């Protein structure tokens, strides 16, 4: 059966065209005009993915994410306005997987949905991950680029693995600090930036034009494996 997408969006025109394009792309759709309705629909018809607007009347988007995340593990993609970096970070920290900034093209959103569904479906079982000319052997803990071994520090490797494990998802600085440096470390966001810069220099063709380790300005990073 085709995946079911739950749209929680109060603006009827946006809901309408989202619904139309999702149906056109072969998905089944449930529409909710408020957070409360969305939560109810999610319980009655558990979706495979949620598209959620952050600015909702009644209980707001952040609250909806928190409540959904108590029992629902499917991807949540957030729709947000520009210049709301803090809101985006909060949503991601609450458990959202990705965000799209309004106004957006449906093509971009559908790509995100496909990626999110794919990552949700594929369990990270494979021991070898490749992207570009890079080959990461998770079992052997080795990294090769152009068939040459690349030396990574333990933290760099840990960062790389964390990124790979959350492919497609936007990862906030806070999330990465917690995952890589551990919850008790006092490391600051710029640690992540410096390590990310090093990873890029070691694994990207042109570190100023990264292909895989993408920056989400003001929010965090995203690992993009498919080229």
């Amino acid at each position, binding site marked *: 059966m085709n995946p079911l997408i739950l749209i929680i969006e109060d603006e009827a025109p946006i809901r309408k065209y989202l619904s139309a394009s999702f149906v056109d792309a072969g998905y089944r759709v449930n529409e909710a005009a408020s957070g409360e309705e969305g939560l109810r629909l999610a319980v009655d018809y558990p979706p495979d993915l949620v598209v959620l607007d952050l600015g909702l009347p009644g209980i707001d988007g952040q609250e909806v994410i928190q409540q959904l995340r108590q029992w629902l593990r499917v991807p949540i993609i957030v729709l947000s306005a520009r210049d709301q970096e803090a809101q985006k970070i909060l949503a991601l920290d609450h458990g959202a997987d990705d965000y799209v900034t309004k106004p957006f093209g449906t093509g971009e959103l559908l790509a995100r949905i496909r990626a999110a569904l794919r990552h949700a479906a594929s369990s990270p079982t494979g021991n070898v991950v490749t992207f570009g000319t890079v080959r990461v052997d998770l079992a052997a803990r080795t990294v090769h680029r152009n068939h040459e071994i690349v030396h990574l520090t333990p933290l760099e490797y840990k960062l790389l693995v964390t990124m790979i494990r959350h492919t497609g998802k936007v990862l906030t600085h806070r999330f990465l600090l917690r995952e890589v440096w551990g919850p008790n470390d006092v490391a600051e966001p710029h640690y992540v930036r410096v390590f990310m810069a090093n990873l*890029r220099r070691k694994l990207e063709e042109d570190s*100023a034009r990264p292909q895989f380790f993408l920056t989400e*300005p003001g929010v965090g990073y995203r690992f993009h494996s498919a080229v």
Partner: protein
Amino acid sequence: MTRPDPDQLLAQIRDDSPDRKRGQLRIFFGYAAGVGKTFAMLENAHRAIAAGRDLVLGYLEPHGRPATERLASSLETLPIREMDHRGVRLKEFDIDAALQRNPEIILVDELAHSNAAGSRHSKRWQDVQELREAGIDVWTTLNVQHIESLNDIVGEITGIVVRETIPDDVFESANEIELVDLPPDDLLERLGQGQIYLPEQAARAAQSFFKRANLSALREMSLRQAASRVHTEVEFARSRQSATVPWATTDRLLVCVGPSPTTARVIRTAKRMATALDAKWTAVSVDLPGHATSQSVKFQIEQHFRLAERLGAETLTLAGNTVSDTILDYARARNVTKILIGKSSEPKWKRLLFKSVVDRLINTSGGIDIYVIQGDSEQATHSRPSPNRTAIRWSGYGNALVTTIVSALLSYILLRLHVADTEANRVMIFLAGVAFVAFRSGQRPAIAASILAVLVFDYCFVPPFLTFAVSDTQYLVTFAVMLAIGLLISTLTSRLKAQIANARRREQRINLLYELGKELSSLYGEVFLAMAASRTLGEIIGAEIVVYLRHQGKLPYPVNGQQTLVATHEISLPAAQWSIEHSQVSGIGTNTLPSACALFVPLVGTQSCLGALAVRPLDSTNLQGPDVRRLLESAANQLALALERDRSVVDAAESRLRAESEQLRSTLLSSVSHDLKTPLASIAGASSTLLNSDTLDSTTRRSLLATIMSETERLNRVLQNILQMSRLDAGAANPNLQWHVLEEIVGSALKHTAQELTDRPMQVILDPSLPLVLIDDVMLEQVLINLIENAARYTPEGSPISLAAELQRNRLLIRVRDRGPGIPTGLEDKIFEKFHRAGVSADDGKGNGLGLAICRAITKLLGGSISVSNPPGGGAEFTIELPQPNDAPQVRIG
């Protein structure tokens, strides 16, 4: 030789000037009550109403004549203000109601009426002036005996002194004089028939007034006044036609003003003479520096000056050594042809001994005519409020007595001790005593001391002792010389003392004004200016001072001392307002709102009246005397100029801001209407075509859809820019500074501009040793995106763009360079302004002129700057300069 008279031209300009139209004054003028002035006025009113004019009846004195009342009853009548004055209900004309009603014409009976205490003005003619200022035409009635300059003549003729008078210039300022005439016989007949209403108490006075001879004289005067008016009007009309008037050798009159009560008559005579000769006249008084002038004398002179001013004279105080020389010097310098002076009231013996001022004037006047006017002693119409006249300095005479006794004792001791006991020494001791008294207590006690000294010297030291008898006649000479020297010493010393006191006072005043001026010039802000002026002035005068200021179209408000008695007094605000509106003094000691608790001096600047200085004297005598008034006026003038300077600074800044924001608004409007309408039109057109047509082939459909898509993006970009700019302008954007890897931000910007950069070589040169930079990544990314987009937009396709960054000491320098045409010289700064575009055609409608303005606003917010130059090799190079701290953190890799 002919030339236009500047004053007349000015008057003409004033009359012709269309802005701020002054209301016309029409006076129904008669010679006595009952000639039918009010009736004539009402008849004319009905005619005016029939002609469609907006006319109301402001106030009509109760006449009790049915014909008059019938005429009045059908007119729109303003409500009458009733006020309680010591238990008596008084009815008064309500000027506020009149101003509020603002009719075209208003009728106000009895121009010479004095208003009840508590009214805004003490005289009705002042109300009328205010109505005219407000542009309302006023019709009123007036009898000839109420004209100030005719006042004394009427008194002489009829034996009745009329207290209610109007200044001549009010009468002269009337635009129309309507003479209402009735032969005296007819008037008497009407009186006999009881057609003329007179209050009971006036009936007896009226009996003597309404005598045939009186009436004839008054009638003649009224006819003459009206005729001279006609003459003036004819003259005026002629001058208007020919633009020049025969320039006859016009007379110029000078009238000498002294404290004597007879001066008032001299002034009135001068006025009549000046009017008859059509001459200008000046009233002068002479200030002799060596002489102490008492407060009451100063007050009298000031009263006379005010009378002269009311009658249209220019007033002036001259300073000089002698009265006659000073007057003649001035008269010669100003081409005065006639001098009027009151007959000297000095005693005969004095006139025989010393020549009087009049004699000296006559002897030395040369070609100038001297008119000596017999002055009947006349009660000054304004008596001094409560001068402390009886406070004779008894202490001075005590001093004289004590000093003489001490002198006598000293002489006696010397005599007994046989030390320097010659008579010459004794005389010297007494004279020293006189000098001491003169210096300490003034002239009169010193004269007393001189006489006393002679008597005591005679009694105690001239044989036979202890009698006033003199054995040797030689001593008579001694006495005479002693007395003469004593008198001389006393005169000279007291004069010197007065001179010193005068000089000191003047110096003090000049110092005060100098200090005030200095202080005011160093201050900014009206509150500080007001406070400084109040403090300095208040200390010198001994008064509480509050500065009221008025801003365009608002009520005046106290700037300082809001808790003071002045600021909380109920009449203060109206008085301040009145003073400001009329640029005249009001409050205590004036004719306007005398019940206020302070004197209000207007702060008249060069362009307008800015406010008023409220002066509440702590002691009522502190405000008396013309020099205090003058001091206040000079200080007010200084403060006004300082305030004006301050305001002009503020105004200039504000108007610049306003002009800028106005400019911005209009550019915003035009830019927005262009940048928003164009994509909207494309979207609307494309989508409606898609909706309405079923026959489009798929290629066309796709291209229309693509248009909608790209135009939407463009619309979005414009909106984002406008929003961001307004956020930055409003200061709502706070930078979120964190340590960043610059490469990451550059990379993000490049990714964002990937579309613009297709087919373009984009070179990025980043110093690998670049440490972490403290920056707001989103803002910097925006700047880089805008710069790259800008470069892509204005340079030929395919031309390279480069980006380089380096750290120079504490500054992060990022350079974005293109290989386009460069920036035209002179526009290096302009391109960063909002809505500036480097050539509209090159723009192709892609941008909205905000990109670089946003860049500048952001770099400024981050404490840095952005500039552009045309480096050698062509193209434009934008340089972002951002400050960086020294202590970039090091991150250990490992």
